[in-house]
């Protein structure tokens, strides 16, 4: 396969899964200001390792594995930094009630997810949100399958607690 063909197929896959990738990075707790940079890092790694990807398997778990490692590296590198003046711009699009409700639910889910430690959050996101089978989660995160089960059990408990707290009127992050 020529390099240009590989480039095209890799770029096409990246383009198709861009929404998923961005959302995954947000779920993994990446700062909104850094999401685009990390998405680009994920793309570079994806391109570099594209020859190892088996196209008969779903791309999302593979992409999640890269995103998880990139986000973890980013967190290790920048945990000391204190961001300032990063304010999400207001959404200027028309906001019907239903969309508003969805938006609130998403914000609540995201805020609750952020209260779960990342290793358990990754398992929960992969299995309960992305609906990836347990054995695939274990393979992607390079952890034993029993660890996946235990992390999932604990993450679910933590998520329920977090949602309950947030719905009671706690501050949403």
């Amino acid at each position, binding site marked *: 396969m020529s*390099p*240009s063909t590989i*480039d095209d197929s890799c*770029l096409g896959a*990246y*383009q198709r899964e*861009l*929404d*998923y990738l*961005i*959302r995954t990075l947000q*779920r993994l707790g990446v700062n909104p200001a850094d999401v*685009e940079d990390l*998405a*680009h890092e994920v*793309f*570079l790694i994806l*391109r570099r390792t594209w020859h190892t990807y088996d196209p008969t398997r779903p791309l999302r778990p593979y992409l999640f594995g890269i995103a998880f490692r990139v986000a973890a590296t980013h967190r290790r590198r920048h945990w000391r930094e204190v961001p300032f003046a990063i304010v999400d711009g207001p959404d200027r699009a028309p906001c019907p009630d239903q969309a508003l409700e*969805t938006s609130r*639910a*998403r914000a*609540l*889910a*995201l805020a*609750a*997810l952020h209260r779960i430690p990342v290793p358990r959050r990754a398992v929960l996101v992969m299995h*309960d*949100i*992305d*609906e990836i*089978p*347990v054995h695939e989660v274990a393979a992607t995160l390079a952890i034993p399958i*029993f660890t996946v*089960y235990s992390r*999932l*059990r604990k993450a*679910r408990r933590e*998520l*329920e607690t977090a*949602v309950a707290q947030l719905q009671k009127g706690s501050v949403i992050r």
Partner: protein
Amino acid sequence: MTTDDTGRMPPPLHHSVDALLAHERALPAQPEMARARILARAREALRATALATVSPRVVPFRVRRYLFASAAGVALLAGAAAAYQMVRRPLSPLPTGKRAPGILQEPPSGPPSVEPTAAPKPAREIALAATTPAVRVAPAKAAFSGRRTSLVARPDGGLRELALLTRARQSDARGDYASVLSVAAEHLRSYPTGRLSEEREVLRVKALVGLGRGGEARYVAAQFRHQFPRSVLLQKVDDMLASLP
């Protein structure tokens, strides 16, 4: 999901939380501007990578293996040869009057008649240095002359060699050029590649000139020029030759 999985699977989420996650499962579309920006960046990266990548010559693994083995063999042979040279050189006798080809050289067993009579005396050294300033060669200068000196530190720290040259200088100061030649020959036998060989050769030229043996002086001077092409004493040797009739 297998039956075993069902047994290990933790209890499901509360339905309200599950409903919340259902909202999260639907991926929100990214704004077009952000999407275009991210994709443009990715395309740019691909273009830059394509420009920067120089297609390497693909060498089959088998060939690479042989190349590596050959290189390792050559390196091993070179190392063995160098080690053999280092071990063998000191054992081979050096021809008298010639420069030693090897880099290692055993210190001589010692000239029999030098030490008792030629112990260096600092006060006289200073006086001699004043009388023959031109032929004193600092070791640092000798290092620039391109000659090879022994890498083995001499047990006497070079004092015996210095004593010989001191005798030669004393004879030179007295005008006893025959004695200068005799001591220089002794030095040549004992220290053919000694640190002071450059100075010895200059003294030989000076003594030959002093004795009026112009032909020999020119021959020794030519050898000196060949051996020490960057010597700071070349000008001095030329001046000596110029004084010949």
